Protein backbone atom coordinates (compact mmCIF):
# COMPACT_ATOMS: atom_id res chain seq x y z
CA UNK A 1 0.00 0.00 0.00
CA UNK A 2 2.67 2.50 1.06
CA UNK A 3 5.09 1.31 -1.63
CA UNK A 4 2.29 1.66 -4.20
CA UNK A 5 1.51 5.21 -3.08
CA UNK A 6 5.21 6.04 -3.38
CA UNK A 7 5.24 4.58 -6.88
CA UNK A 8 2.24 6.74 -7.92
CA UNK A 9 4.09 9.84 -6.68
CA UNK A 10 7.34 8.82 -8.37
CA UNK A 11 5.49 8.31 -11.68
CA UNK A 12 3.98 11.77 -11.30
CA UNK A 13 7.41 13.28 -10.58
CA UNK A 14 8.98 11.56 -13.59
CA UNK A 15 6.02 12.74 -15.68
CA UNK A 16 6.52 16.36 -14.54
CA UNK A 17 10.24 16.12 -15.42
CA UNK A 18 9.63 14.70 -18.89
CA UNK A 19 6.98 17.35 -19.66
CA UNK A 20 9.29 20.11 -18.44
CA UNK A 21 12.34 18.80 -20.28
CA UNK A 22 10.52 18.18 -23.57
CA UNK A 23 8.29 21.28 -23.38
CA UNK A 24 5.13 19.19 -23.95
CA UNK A 25 1.67 20.81 -23.64
CA UNK A 26 0.41 17.92 -21.44
CA UNK A 27 0.23 18.10 -17.62
CA UNK A 28 2.82 16.03 -15.73
CA UNK A 29 0.30 13.64 -14.09
CA UNK A 30 -1.08 12.63 -17.52
CA UNK A 31 2.48 11.75 -18.60
CA UNK A 32 2.85 9.91 -15.26
CA UNK A 33 -0.27 7.88 -16.10
CA UNK A 34 1.32 6.88 -19.43
CA UNK A 35 4.53 5.85 -17.61
CA UNK A 36 2.63 3.73 -15.06
CA UNK A 37 0.56 2.11 -17.82
CA UNK A 38 3.76 1.22 -19.70
CA UNK A 39 5.19 -0.22 -16.48
CA UNK A 40 2.06 -2.32 -15.81
CA UNK A 41 2.10 -3.66 -19.37
CA UNK A 42 5.77 -4.60 -19.01
CA UNK A 43 5.09 -6.23 -15.62
CA UNK A 44 2.04 -8.12 -16.88
CA UNK A 45 -0.22 -7.56 -13.86
CA UNK A 46 -1.22 -4.98 -11.24
CA UNK A 47 0.54 -5.68 -7.91
CA UNK A 48 -1.81 -5.44 -4.90
CA UNK A 49 0.39 -2.76 -3.37
CA UNK A 50 -0.47 -0.43 -6.30
CA UNK A 51 -4.10 -1.50 -6.69
CA UNK A 52 -5.09 -0.60 -3.12
CA UNK A 53 -4.03 3.10 -3.13
CA UNK A 54 -5.02 3.55 -6.81
CA UNK A 55 -8.56 2.31 -6.31
CA UNK A 56 -8.84 4.22 -3.04
CA UNK A 57 -7.95 7.50 -4.78
CA UNK A 58 -10.22 6.85 -7.76
CA UNK A 59 -13.18 5.97 -5.55
CA UNK A 60 -13.07 9.51 -4.14
CA UNK A 61 -12.05 11.30 -7.35
CA UNK A 62 -15.05 13.65 -7.20
CA UNK A 63 -14.00 15.06 -3.80
CA UNK A 64 -10.65 16.13 -5.25
CA UNK A 65 -12.36 18.65 -7.59
CA UNK A 66 -14.01 20.59 -4.77
CA UNK A 67 -11.03 22.88 -3.86
CA UNK A 68 -10.54 23.96 -7.51
CA UNK A 69 -14.30 24.38 -7.93
CA UNK A 70 -14.53 26.76 -4.99
CA UNK A 71 -12.07 28.92 -7.01
CA UNK A 72 -15.03 29.97 -9.20
CA UNK A 73 -15.85 32.54 -6.49
CA UNK A 74 -12.82 34.55 -7.65
CA UNK A 75 -14.49 35.08 -11.04
CA UNK A 76 -17.94 35.99 -9.70
CA UNK A 77 -17.92 39.46 -11.35
CA UNK A 78 -16.69 38.25 -14.74
CA UNK A 79 -19.25 35.48 -14.78
CA UNK A 80 -22.05 37.83 -13.64
CA UNK A 81 -21.38 40.15 -16.60
CA UNK A 82 -21.65 37.51 -19.32
CA UNK A 83 -23.28 34.57 -17.61
CA UNK A 84 -26.08 34.03 -20.14
CA UNK A 85 -23.71 33.93 -23.11
CA UNK A 86 -21.29 31.68 -21.23
CA UNK A 87 -23.95 29.27 -20.01
CA UNK A 88 -25.80 29.03 -23.35
CA UNK A 89 -22.63 28.40 -25.33
CA UNK A 90 -21.36 25.83 -22.82
CA UNK A 91 -24.67 23.91 -22.75
CA UNK A 92 -25.15 23.92 -26.54
CA UNK A 93 -21.53 22.99 -27.17
CA UNK A 94 -21.49 20.21 -24.56
CA UNK A 95 -24.69 18.65 -25.96
CA UNK A 96 -23.27 18.76 -29.51
CA UNK A 97 -19.94 17.32 -28.33
CA UNK A 98 -21.61 14.43 -26.48
CA UNK A 99 -23.79 13.68 -29.53
CA UNK A 100 -20.90 13.73 -32.02
CA UNK A 101 -18.51 11.68 -29.86
CA UNK A 102 -21.04 9.04 -28.81
CA UNK A 103 -22.44 8.62 -32.34
CA UNK A 104 -19.02 8.43 -34.04
CA UNK A 105 -17.74 5.89 -31.51
CA UNK A 106 -20.96 3.84 -31.60
CA UNK A 107 -20.89 3.69 -35.41
CA UNK A 108 -17.20 2.82 -35.62
CA UNK A 109 -17.38 0.07 -32.99
CA UNK A 110 -20.64 -1.41 -34.29
CA UNK A 111 -18.92 -4.22 -36.14
CA UNK A 112 -16.25 -5.02 -33.56
CA UNK A 113 -16.61 -8.17 -31.50
CA UNK A 114 -16.34 -6.80 -28.00
CA UNK A 115 -17.99 -9.51 -25.95
CA UNK A 116 -20.42 -8.57 -23.21
CA UNK A 117 -21.94 -5.10 -23.48
CA UNK A 118 -21.53 -2.74 -20.53
CA UNK A 119 -20.04 -5.40 -18.26
CA UNK A 120 -19.78 -4.36 -14.62
CA UNK A 121 -16.31 -5.72 -14.02
Amino acid at each position, binding site marked *: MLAGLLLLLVCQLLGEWIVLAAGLPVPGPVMGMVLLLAGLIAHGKVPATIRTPAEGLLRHL*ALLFVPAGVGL*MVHAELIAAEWLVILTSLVVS*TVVTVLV*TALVLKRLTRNLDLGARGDKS
Partner: protein
Amino acid sequence: MSSFWVYFAAKPLWWIIVTIATFLFTSWLNRRVGGTPLLHPVLVALSLIIVLLQLTGTDYNTYFEGAQFIHFLLGPATVALAVPLYDHFERVKKMLLPLLIACSCGAVTAALSVIAVAWLLGASEATLLSLAPKSVTSPIAIGIAEKIGGYPSLAAGLVLITGAIGCLVAPPLFRWLKIEDDAVKGFTLGLSAHGFGTAFAFEFSTLAGAFAGLAMGLTGLLTAFIVPVLVRLLGL
Protein backbone atom coordinates in the same frame (compact mmCIF):
# COMPACT_ATOMS: atom_id res chain seq x y z
CA MET B 1 -16.47 34.09 19.83
CA SER B 2 -14.58 36.04 17.18
CA SER B 3 -11.15 35.19 18.63
CA PHE B 4 -12.26 31.57 18.73
CA TRP B 5 -13.13 31.79 15.04
CA VAL B 6 -9.86 33.48 14.08
CA TYR B 7 -7.91 30.71 15.78
CA PHE B 8 -9.68 27.96 13.85
CA ALA B 9 -9.90 29.78 10.55
CA ALA B 10 -6.13 30.31 10.52
CA LYS B 11 -5.44 26.59 10.68
CA PRO B 12 -5.18 24.76 7.33
CA LEU B 13 -6.66 21.73 9.09
CA TRP B 14 -9.97 23.53 9.51
CA TRP B 15 -10.60 23.94 5.77
CA ILE B 16 -9.63 20.32 5.07
CA ILE B 17 -12.22 19.19 7.61
CA VAL B 18 -14.84 21.57 6.18
CA THR B 19 -14.20 20.33 2.62
CA ILE B 20 -14.38 16.62 3.45
CA ALA B 21 -17.32 16.97 5.85
CA THR B 22 -19.29 19.07 3.33
CA PHE B 23 -18.59 16.56 0.58
CA LEU B 24 -19.66 13.62 2.79
CA PHE B 25 -22.86 15.48 3.60
CA THR B 26 -23.64 16.34 -0.04
CA SER B 27 -22.88 12.75 -1.14
CA TRP B 28 -25.31 11.49 1.49
CA LEU B 29 -27.86 14.09 0.37
CA ASN B 30 -27.41 13.06 -3.26
CA ARG B 31 -28.06 9.39 -2.39
CA ARG B 32 -31.11 10.39 -0.39
CA VAL B 33 -32.69 12.16 -3.39
CA GLY B 34 -31.96 9.24 -5.73
CA GLY B 35 -28.59 10.29 -7.20
CA THR B 36 -29.82 13.07 -9.51
CA PRO B 37 -26.94 14.88 -11.28
CA LEU B 38 -28.82 18.17 -10.67
CA LEU B 39 -27.68 17.90 -7.05
CA HIS B 40 -24.22 16.61 -7.98
CA PRO B 41 -22.24 16.28 -4.70
CA VAL B 42 -19.35 18.36 -6.07
CA LEU B 43 -21.60 21.22 -7.21
CA VAL B 44 -23.60 21.34 -3.98
CA ALA B 45 -20.44 21.05 -1.87
CA LEU B 46 -18.64 23.88 -3.64
CA SER B 47 -21.73 26.12 -3.48
CA LEU B 48 -22.07 25.50 0.27
CA ILE B 49 -18.36 26.18 0.83
CA ILE B 50 -18.48 29.41 -1.22
CA VAL B 51 -21.44 30.57 0.89
CA LEU B 52 -19.57 29.66 4.09
CA LEU B 53 -16.45 31.51 2.94
CA GLN B 54 -18.51 34.60 2.13
CA LEU B 55 -20.41 34.49 5.42
CA THR B 56 -17.14 34.28 7.37
CA GLY B 57 -15.35 36.82 5.13
CA THR B 58 -12.63 34.32 4.20
CA ASP B 59 -10.85 34.79 0.87
CA TYR B 60 -10.07 31.96 -1.53
CA ASN B 61 -6.33 31.98 -0.81
CA THR B 62 -6.92 31.34 2.89
CA TYR B 63 -9.31 28.51 2.06
CA PHE B 64 -6.85 27.03 -0.42
CA GLU B 65 -4.04 26.95 2.17
CA GLY B 66 -5.94 24.07 3.74
CA ALA B 67 -7.77 22.69 0.72
CA GLN B 68 -4.56 22.42 -1.35
CA PHE B 69 -3.78 19.16 0.45
CA ILE B 70 -6.93 17.65 -1.08
CA HIS B 71 -6.28 19.38 -4.42
CA PHE B 72 -2.77 17.90 -4.44
CA LEU B 73 -4.18 14.35 -4.56
CA LEU B 74 -5.51 15.04 -8.09
CA GLY B 75 -1.95 14.38 -9.33
CA PRO B 76 -1.49 10.84 -7.97
CA ALA B 77 -5.18 10.12 -8.75
CA THR B 78 -4.54 10.97 -12.41
CA VAL B 79 -1.52 8.64 -12.40
CA ALA B 80 -3.72 5.97 -10.77
CA LEU B 81 -6.02 6.02 -13.83
CA ALA B 82 -3.41 3.72 -15.41
CA VAL B 83 -4.71 0.84 -13.22
CA PRO B 84 -8.31 0.62 -14.60
CA LEU B 85 -6.87 1.41 -18.02
CA TYR B 86 -4.56 -1.61 -17.74
CA ASP B 87 -7.42 -3.81 -16.50
CA HIS B 88 -9.36 -3.01 -19.68
CA PHE B 89 -6.37 -2.83 -22.00
CA GLU B 90 -7.66 -5.62 -24.25
CA ARG B 91 -10.79 -3.57 -25.02
CA VAL B 92 -8.72 -0.44 -25.57
CA LYS B 93 -6.45 -2.22 -28.06
CA LYS B 94 -9.41 -3.54 -30.07
CA MET B 95 -10.99 -0.09 -30.18
CA LEU B 96 -7.82 1.98 -30.70
CA LEU B 97 -8.54 3.38 -34.17
CA PRO B 98 -12.22 4.19 -33.50
CA LEU B 99 -11.16 5.84 -30.24
CA LEU B 100 -8.60 8.06 -31.98
CA ILE B 101 -11.09 9.08 -34.69
CA ALA B 102 -13.89 9.75 -32.17
CA CYS B 103 -11.47 11.77 -30.06
CA SER B 104 -10.42 14.00 -32.97
CA CYS B 105 -14.05 14.58 -34.04
CA GLY B 106 -15.12 15.28 -30.45
CA ALA B 107 -12.26 17.64 -29.61
CA VAL B 108 -12.75 19.71 -32.80
CA THR B 109 -16.53 19.82 -32.21
CA ALA B 110 -16.08 20.92 -28.59
CA ALA B 111 -13.78 23.84 -29.44
CA LEU B 112 -15.50 24.93 -32.66
CA SER B 113 -19.09 24.78 -31.36
CA VAL B 114 -18.41 26.78 -28.22
CA ILE B 115 -16.58 29.50 -30.19
CA ALA B 116 -19.40 29.60 -32.78
CA VAL B 117 -22.25 29.89 -30.26
CA ALA B 118 -20.48 32.44 -28.05
CA TRP B 119 -19.54 34.53 -31.12
CA LEU B 120 -23.14 34.49 -32.38
CA LEU B 121 -24.34 35.64 -28.96
CA GLY B 122 -21.81 38.49 -28.95
CA ALA B 123 -19.35 37.41 -26.27
CA SER B 124 -16.30 39.60 -25.69
CA GLU B 125 -13.09 38.38 -27.27
CA ALA B 126 -11.42 37.49 -23.95
CA THR B 127 -14.46 35.41 -22.92
CA LEU B 128 -14.45 33.75 -26.33
CA LEU B 129 -10.81 32.77 -26.01
CA SER B 130 -11.30 31.58 -22.42
CA LEU B 131 -14.20 29.38 -23.57
CA ALA B 132 -12.27 27.66 -26.38
CA PRO B 133 -10.36 25.11 -24.25
CA LYS B 134 -13.36 24.29 -21.98
CA SER B 135 -13.47 20.58 -22.65
CA VAL B 136 -9.94 19.94 -21.43
CA THR B 137 -8.79 19.13 -17.94
CA SER B 138 -7.92 22.33 -15.97
CA PRO B 139 -4.10 22.34 -16.08
CA ILE B 140 -4.07 21.92 -19.87
CA ALA B 141 -6.88 24.48 -20.35
CA ILE B 142 -4.88 27.08 -18.41
CA GLY B 143 -1.89 26.59 -20.71
CA ILE B 144 -4.02 26.85 -23.87
CA ALA B 145 -5.88 29.99 -22.71
CA GLU B 146 -2.53 31.67 -21.97
CA LYS B 147 -1.25 30.76 -25.40
CA ILE B 148 -4.23 32.16 -27.35
CA GLY B 149 -4.92 35.22 -25.16
CA GLY B 150 -7.87 34.29 -22.93
CA TYR B 151 -8.04 34.57 -19.12
CA PRO B 152 -6.30 31.42 -17.77
CA SER B 153 -8.09 31.59 -14.38
CA LEU B 154 -11.50 32.03 -16.01
CA ALA B 155 -10.74 29.16 -18.39
CA ALA B 156 -10.07 26.90 -15.39
CA GLY B 157 -13.46 27.84 -13.88
CA LEU B 158 -15.30 27.32 -17.17
CA VAL B 159 -13.75 23.87 -17.43
CA LEU B 160 -15.41 22.94 -14.13
CA ILE B 161 -18.81 24.32 -15.22
CA THR B 162 -18.50 22.37 -18.48
CA GLY B 163 -17.77 19.25 -16.46
CA ALA B 164 -20.94 19.71 -14.45
CA ILE B 165 -23.03 20.39 -17.58
CA GLY B 166 -21.59 17.27 -19.22
CA CYS B 167 -22.65 15.09 -16.27
CA LEU B 168 -26.14 16.64 -16.44
CA VAL B 169 -26.81 16.30 -20.17
CA ALA B 170 -24.97 13.05 -20.98
CA PRO B 171 -27.24 10.44 -19.27
CA PRO B 172 -30.48 11.55 -21.04
CA LEU B 173 -28.58 11.82 -24.35
CA PHE B 174 -27.22 8.27 -23.88
CA ARG B 175 -30.77 7.00 -23.33
CA TRP B 176 -32.01 8.90 -26.39
CA LEU B 177 -29.19 7.56 -28.60
CA LYS B 178 -29.62 4.05 -27.11
CA ILE B 179 -25.95 3.88 -26.03
CA GLU B 180 -25.56 0.78 -23.87
CA ASP B 181 -21.82 0.15 -24.07
CA ASP B 182 -20.10 1.46 -20.93
CA ALA B 183 -16.89 1.98 -22.91
CA VAL B 184 -18.67 4.41 -25.28
CA LYS B 185 -20.42 6.15 -22.35
CA GLY B 186 -17.17 6.55 -20.44
CA PHE B 187 -15.16 7.76 -23.41
CA THR B 188 -17.82 10.35 -24.28
CA LEU B 189 -17.97 11.58 -20.66
CA GLY B 190 -14.20 11.86 -20.39
CA LEU B 191 -13.99 13.75 -23.68
CA SER B 192 -16.78 16.23 -23.08
CA ALA B 193 -16.51 16.62 -19.29
CA HIS B 194 -12.85 15.67 -18.51
CA GLY B 195 -12.15 14.91 -14.79
CA PHE B 196 -15.72 15.60 -13.67
CA GLY B 197 -16.96 13.21 -16.31
CA THR B 198 -14.35 10.64 -15.33
CA ALA B 199 -15.40 10.72 -11.69
CA PHE B 200 -19.01 10.41 -12.86
CA ALA B 201 -18.17 7.52 -15.23
CA PHE B 202 -16.71 5.49 -12.35
CA GLU B 203 -20.25 5.46 -10.93
CA PHE B 204 -21.39 3.48 -14.02
CA SER B 205 -18.53 0.93 -13.83
CA THR B 206 -14.73 0.71 -13.76
CA LEU B 207 -14.83 0.01 -17.51
CA ALA B 208 -16.56 3.35 -18.12
CA GLY B 209 -14.09 5.03 -15.77
CA ALA B 210 -11.08 3.58 -17.57
CA PHE B 211 -12.29 4.81 -20.95
CA ALA B 212 -13.16 8.21 -19.48
CA GLY B 213 -9.60 8.56 -18.15
CA LEU B 214 -8.22 7.58 -21.54
CA ALA B 215 -10.46 10.12 -23.30
CA MET B 216 -9.41 12.84 -20.86
CA GLY B 217 -5.71 12.27 -21.60
CA LEU B 218 -6.15 11.98 -25.38
CA THR B 219 -8.43 15.03 -25.60
CA GLY B 220 -5.98 17.13 -23.61
CA LEU B 221 -3.20 16.24 -26.00
CA LEU B 222 -5.26 16.82 -29.16
CA THR B 223 -6.90 20.05 -27.98
CA ALA B 224 -3.53 21.52 -27.04
CA PHE B 225 -2.56 21.21 -30.69
CA ILE B 226 -5.94 21.89 -32.34
CA VAL B 227 -7.19 25.01 -30.52
CA PRO B 228 -4.26 27.35 -31.31
CA VAL B 229 -4.53 26.34 -34.99
CA LEU B 230 -8.34 26.82 -35.02
CA VAL B 231 -8.04 30.25 -33.43
CA ARG B 232 -5.57 31.34 -36.11
CA LEU B 233 -7.78 29.95 -38.89
CA LEU B 234 -10.80 31.85 -37.53
CA GLY B 235 -8.71 35.05 -37.36
CA LEU B 236 -9.41 35.77 -33.67
